[in-house]
């Protein structure tokens, strides 16, 4: 498998609060990795450090071309940070035209703040997925606010991208959806990360099995 994006020894603190501590993570082509952790564990921080939107205090992020500068956007890369990252005052259509460069333009003329939560989420996801020449995809809570049809569409789209060789990292609390899409799971707790394959968790991996794994890591005793 090709390592599309690799983080080595990543650490990040906000003031005295240490969010990431010596985190190592490899994203491989054709693999979907699910990122699981309690609220405030540092999932968004990890995604933003890998995306180049945030500097790590220590460690390096690299791709096939070599070590990437901090706070520099990556090539062949798309990141979805949640519907709240779309400015509420812009019109959905204008946003679609600019962000997706014509690949997917919504007919919706209302402002983003006037759209339903699910439509906002869909707008953000469509914009991210419409970016051309992308082989690495990072998603933060992509199923948030989606109805069952939307969730099914997203699962199918992610599986298609993985089958086509993309590296996908998805952070979510929706463990059943993660289990439907991901091949491997990364548990983030107290700044440390542990990656498990499906086989390590059990013969069948569903939301319940992931929840059990999550609980084990919550209370190791």
């Amino acid at each position, binding site marked *: 498998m090709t390592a599309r994006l690799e983080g080595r020894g990543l650490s990040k603190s*906000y003031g005295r609060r240490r969010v990431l501590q010596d985190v190592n993570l490899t994203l491989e082509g054709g693999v979907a990795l699910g990122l699981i952790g309690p609220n405030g564990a540092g999932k968004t921080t990890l995604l933003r450090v890998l995306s180049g939107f945030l500097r790590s205090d220590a460690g390096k992020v690299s791709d096939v071309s070599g070590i990437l500068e901090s706070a520099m*956007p990556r090539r062949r890369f798309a990141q979805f*940070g*949640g519907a709240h*990252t779309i*400015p509420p005052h812009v019109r959905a259509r204008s*946003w679609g035209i*600019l962000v997706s460069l014509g690949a997917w333009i919504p007919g919706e003329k209302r402002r983003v703040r006037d759209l339903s939560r699910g439509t906002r989420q869909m707008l953000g996801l469509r914009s991210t997925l419409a970016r051309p020449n992308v082989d690495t995809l990072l998603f933060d809570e992509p199923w948030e606010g989606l109805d069952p049809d939307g969730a099914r569409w997203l699962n199918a789209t992610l599986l298609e991208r993985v089958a086509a060789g993309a590296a996908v990292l998805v952070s979510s609390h929706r463990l059943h959806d993660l289990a439907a899409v991901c091949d491997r799971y990364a548990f983030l707790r107290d700044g440390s990360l542990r990656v498990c394959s499906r086989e390590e968790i059990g013969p069948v991996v569903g939301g319940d099995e992931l929840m059990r794994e999550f609980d084990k890591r919550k209370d190791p005793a």
Partner: protein
Amino acid sequence: MRRWNVLRFINMVTPVRTVLLLPMGATLVFGAWLEAKNPGSSDSAVAFLMLLQLFAVSTGFVSHARRGFYDPVLERVPRRAIAHFFCALWPGCIVLVGIGIAELIAGGRTHALGASAWTALALISSVAWAVSVRAGALSGGAVWLLASLALLLSGRGLNVLGVIKAAELGQASLRDVVETGLLYPVTIPSLNLSTPAEAILLGVSATALTAGVEYIARADFPIREEQG
């Protein structure tokens, strides 16, 4: 996202407020009307434009960056910062050029196209923008205007009218002109700046712009919820 689209995108995410764009448009009409009525008399329109520009250019950066609004701009951070500055600057430039064209048509003194007016626009725009990068929208204009008013009301400021009159006659000292320009930037277009005074004020402007861009390039903007 292509370069041109970066400007369009930032202009969409952090536009100059409509509440400021409308009076800026009205200032252009007012300046043209003054010129048509009495050529060479648009000084007050230029001064009012400078006052509006103080606030128009203070679009703010950090609060939007900390919500992830600029994430789709896949450009190096300094370029993103410069694009952000230009998006805040353009309405003032257009109005100043418009008043200048009205002056040329009227055939009077070309006040708006003069070096003093453009030095004023550069200084006001870069300093107010740089202050607002971290402090938030409208803050650059508010801070500068309040400081000017406080000095004026306290009586500790310079004799502004005296300096303007002396500058018109070419008798004001370099120090007085520069201090007046920095403390009361709206008066700069009326100060008949000498080349050294222009150079000093443009130096201040370049320093402020560099400081704003450097801040954006070096600072981290974690998403609010994540930082906790």
